[in-house]
């Protein structure tokens, strides 16, 4: 039974990856890596606020996650470049540029909304550290929205 599930999953991934353009794969890598580092980072912030951890630990975790993100981006992108070097060298075509613009517009509204929420937060009795974290969260959520919107548009073929 387990072998069957693994076979179905691997076949599904094979089909999905072979249907994806280089840039869609690249977007998936960035999206998943950003999600992978954002979740533990902001969870750590919640632990600091509840007194379960220190900001010094948070800084070390931040450095570690940045290294994981950069190394992950470089290694995984190197793999997909080796798989399709011609696609990697080719400039974006008009549909890909349109997808970028549409995704950017969606992310812009998310960033603006988040920025307004941070401005509101400033008027509450919260410390500077929490406001900086909220700003960082706004940027991360906007970036995830942009990458996510791109993935949706790639799948919908706009």
């Amino acid at each position, binding site marked *: 039974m387990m072998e069957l599930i693994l076979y179905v999953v691997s076949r599904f991934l094979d089909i999905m990856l072979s*249907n994806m353009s280089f*840039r869609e794969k690249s977007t998936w890598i960035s999206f998943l890596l950003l999600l992978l580092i954002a979740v533990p980072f902001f969870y750590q912030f919640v632990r600091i606020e509840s007194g379960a951890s220190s900001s010094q630990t948070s800084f070390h975790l931040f450095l570690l996650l940045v290294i994981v993100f950069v190394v992950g981006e470089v290694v995984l992108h190197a793999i997909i470049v080796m798989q399709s070097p011609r696609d990697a060298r080719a400039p974006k075509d*008009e*549909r890909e540029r349109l997808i970028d613009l549409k995704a950017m517009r969606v992310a812009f509204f998310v960033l603006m909304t988040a920025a307004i929420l941070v401005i509101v937060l400033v008027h509450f009795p919260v410390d500077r550290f929490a406001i900086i974290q909220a700003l960082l969260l706004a940027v991360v959520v906007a970036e995830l929205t942009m990458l996510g919107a791109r993935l949706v548009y790639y799948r919908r*073929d706009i």
Partner: protein
Amino acid sequence: MGDCAVQNRIRRLRFDQGEMTQQALADRVGVTRQTVNAIELGKYSPSLEVAFRIARVFGVPLEDVFQFQEQP
């Protein structure tokens, strides 16, 4: 075909050209294979420049590749 007002005969024209692949057409037009697929399925309307390039690859007038149909 999708719900796009611009219909096309790219699939038929590829067949007539000895079953030209989407990748071969994409390479000659200068777009990705996924973009050719999206155009062929009617999910994406190309720019005039790309439309003319596609017609030129098949050696036919633009109207033989793309047709505009009024939506009710």
